[in-house]
């Protein structure tokens, strides 16, 4: 199914204003939606019998920096039986603990991806069963992939910068 058909199906289901914008330059092509409605959309994409996005390939968190003052989460979906791709992006206000709803109820693979984003970018996924750091030590300060990240001077008496 082509990208346009997928967008049409989504618009029929949720109304014309649901899709905020389309990013046709992206590969695979992306739709941008409101972050508060991500779970509704994903349940629809996962369960619709013509779309059937059974596989969540990747979740990426992005920090656009203090100037733009937004953070983004990009979801890469793939349907194994129909062989079609989709990227869904949501944008949120940049803050100390921005929040996005978790997708662990739909795809179990979201568990570790979301923990990684929480760890490296500090985006909190509400409804996640086990929101702990995954790559960095539990008592590490700050989130390294934020654009304004500055590493702590000492970690347990060990100089961080060498």
């Amino acid at each position, binding site marked *: 199914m082509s990208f346009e058909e997928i967008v049409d199906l989504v618009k029929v289901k949720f109304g014309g204003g649901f899709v905020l914008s389309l*990013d046709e*330059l*992206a*590969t*695979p092509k*992306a739709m941008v939606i409101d972050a508060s409605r991500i779970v509704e959309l994903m349940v629809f994409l996962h369960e619709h019998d013509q779309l059937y996005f*059974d*596989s*969540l*390939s*990747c979740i*990426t968190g*992005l920090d656009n920096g203090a100037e733009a003052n937004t953070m983004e989460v*990009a979801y*890469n979906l793939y349907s*194994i039986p129909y*062989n079609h*791709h989709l*990227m869904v*992006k949501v944008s949120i206000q940049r803050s100390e603990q921005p929040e996005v709803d978790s997708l662990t109820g739909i*795809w*179990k*693979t979201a*568990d*570790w*991806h979301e923990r990684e984003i929480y760890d*490296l970018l500090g985006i909190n996924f509400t409804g996640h069963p*086990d929101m*702990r*750091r*995954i*790559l*960095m*030590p*539990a*008592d590490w300060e700050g989130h*390294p*992939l934020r654009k304004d990240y500055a590493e702590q001077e000492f970690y*347990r*008496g*060990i*100089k961080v910068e060498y």
Partner: protein
Amino acid sequence: MANQVQYIFDNENLRNSEPQKHKPEDLKSEEMLINIGPQHPSTHGVLRLEVVTNGEEVVSVIPHIGYLHRCFEKHAESMPYNQTIPFVDRMDYLAAMNSEHAYAMGVEKMLGIHGQLPKRVEYIRVLVAELNRLGSHFVALGSYGADIGALTPFFWMLRDREHILRMLEWICGARMLYNYIWVGGLFYDLPVGFEERCLEFTSYIKPKLTELDTLLINNKIFIDRTANVGVLPVDLGINYGITGPMLRGSGLKYDLRKVDGYSVYPELDFDIPVGKGEMGTIGDCWDRTWVRAQECRESIKIIEQCLVQLTGDHKRTRDFDPRKMVPKKIRPKAQDLYVRAENPKGELGFFFRADGRSDVPFRCKGRGPSFVNLSIINELAKGGLIADLIAIVGSIDIVLGEVDR
């Protein structure tokens, strides 16, 4: 500065750096908390497993990862696209060529030169990637045997892998971390005489795979340890994002070399082996191992076809320049791109965001197959024995360099 003491002993430092998820006081009276790793040979690197057991039975497994975290994504944000390739090598260090191939394809797609490379370059890329896939599967099979008590296959597989490493060393000078596939081309053409040596290798290795079958795969003890252990149903696997030999072991014919048909794979003839549950249930540890052994044969088929092309239609010429298409400056237009390729362990994906103004990616995320495949371990191991947990970890075939990045 040189004489300054940097590390001061403090009792607080002995606290666990990563606290356990379960606290001993919360466990039931018959349960016990056991810590496996991070320094344990059967965890294939620095993986720590927090295991709640009831006698010999595993109640739950919580993997603790990150001991080999080397900030790949942070590094990638600070240097030009082409300089990130050595870091990509260090993700899955057993299959660096495959990772480079995926990364280079992604950047080429952003630049719009994808599919325009000389055919010889593409065939060489596939050739070295398949050689590396063989090497990676040899380590997976050999060390899996060692995990569950058969030490001989480990030595045999590493002996055969040595041939591959030496050939790859001949190509580019490095044994494991190659930096050979460049964005837009290759570091060098194949050395003179390589094709003949490689053909010799394929005729050498085929009987060795038959030996492996008799020594390990069809060995009664091996079957007893792996059949019906760690059964992964295919729908659960897809929900967990499992890919590669693990998903194929569960019976789904899903290989990105066929599905996406990238590079010159559509021109090559090879099969996708899938698990059939011959020794037990579909999707058990034995099926996954068997799929890997069969894939070695398919890789040899691909290598032979590449060699035919590289000595025939696309043979070495005096004016062939593998760096002809290598861009002087890599500055893609502003865009988001997700690229994926079939690594020995599964789907390796890269998410790029280019801002169009610099030679440095705004964001580069690596989606490692080992990372995602490892996340299912609790589902596979709970309810089984501790000895089976070791068999399951080995059958997932993780490389911690990629899990932790």
